[in-house]
């Protein structure tokens, strides 16, 4: 076998093995999207109920609470970045990190100091490589987020928020994550968690035109104290689940195009290999004919 042909055959085999791997990853991601989406849906009643309750307290009572009032001057802002633990997901992590950089530039232009909280190994790697400081990281559970992690993240952020600015507390909390729009679209999104702006879920009363006048037990302040960490947690948990679903969708898309590319490669190399084989045969024939010619003419 000619050297040229052997090289082509090797390349075909290599593309075939790669294709097997990417195809398998595509199928795994596809099956995980369903699960991740189901989890997003399952968490919806909770976040809906919490959002409703928070908007009830925030809109039907005029109580001053640290978590709802805008500080006069914002000196420090926390940014929570939700990335993934693994790559091979196209522009998934690049998108969310770019969005975070844009947010950072915006905040810094407003004279705010930015502190980072990272979720997912990819964001941590990005920061470590650039030798940039961050406050805290959570890694290892981005594929199927646990509520306990969200609770921990929420507690950390709320604690930092309540702290005095002079002692290193933050005045704002932003969250950057990939939102699952559809199987083919995932958009990076920035949401300001605190101070609170409850916009979604404020339902306009329909047939009961009177706004319900809530009774609070034990008191408005206590209820708000207990409710807001819960609200923050549920928002973070929802973002984590969205991000997980988006990651699986992005992986599926990336792996599908990788498999398709492998297919075209295999096709191209097969053509080239056939060509090389044909050329080799032609050469052998002409050698034989030439040899026979030389023998017969010398006789």
């Amino acid at each position: 076998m000619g050297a040229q042909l052997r090289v082509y055959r090797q390349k075909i085999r290599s593309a075939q093995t790669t294709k097997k791997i990417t195809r398998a990853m595509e199928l795994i991601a596809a099956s995980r999207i369903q699960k991740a989406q189901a989890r997003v849906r399952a968490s919806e009643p909770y976040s809906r109920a919490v959002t409703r309750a928070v908007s009830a307290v925030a809109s039907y009572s005029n109580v001053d609470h640290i978590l709802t009032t805008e500080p006069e001057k914002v000196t420090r802002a926390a940014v929570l970045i939700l990335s993934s633990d693994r790559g091979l997901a196209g522009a998934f992590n690049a998108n969310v990190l770019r969005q975070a950089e844009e947010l950072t530039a915006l905040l810094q232009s407003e004279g705010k100091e930015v502190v980072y909280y990272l979720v997912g190994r990819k964001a941590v790697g990005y920061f470590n490589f650039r030798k940039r400081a961050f406050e805290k990281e959570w890694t290892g559970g981005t594929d199927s987020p646990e509520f306990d992690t969200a609770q921990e993240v929420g507690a950390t952020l709320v604690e930092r928020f309540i702290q005095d600015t002079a002692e290193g507390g933050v005045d704002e909390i932003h969250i950057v994550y990939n939102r699952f729009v559809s199987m083919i679209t995932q958009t990076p999104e920035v949401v300001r968690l605190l101070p609170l702006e409850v916009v979604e879920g404020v339902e306009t009363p329909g047939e009961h035109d009177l706004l319900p006048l809530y009774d609070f037990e034990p008191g408005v302040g206590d209820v708000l104290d207990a409710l807001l960490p819960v609200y923050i947690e549920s928002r973070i948990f929802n973002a984590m689940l969205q991000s997980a679903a988006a990651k699986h969708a992005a992986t599926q898309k990336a792996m599908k195009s990788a498999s398709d590319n492998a297919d075209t490669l295999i096709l191209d190399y097969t053509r080239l290999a056939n060509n090389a084989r044909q050329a080799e045969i032609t050469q052998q024939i002409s050698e034989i004919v030439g040899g026979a010619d030389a023998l017969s003419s010398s006789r």
Partner: protein
Amino acid sequence: MAELTVSVVSADAEVWTGPATQVSARTTEGEIGILPGHEPILAILGAGEVRVKGTDGVWIKADAADGFLSVENDTVTIVARHAALA
């Protein structure tokens, strides 16, 4: 008689939902019983179980720690980080 629409939700799932005639729970202030027509209330739940009396008169018990209870227009929502049917 009017009915209550009750749902018990935890962080990652809806635990129970359906019509009921009575709900009884323990808040941080003490025991609270809710019948149809109750005024809107938002209360923090204390430790203990929540009991829901279904329309068939059977009591359903659920453990709901670390949460709150809201009543509005005969809709009762019990929200807890961790909730499970007992």
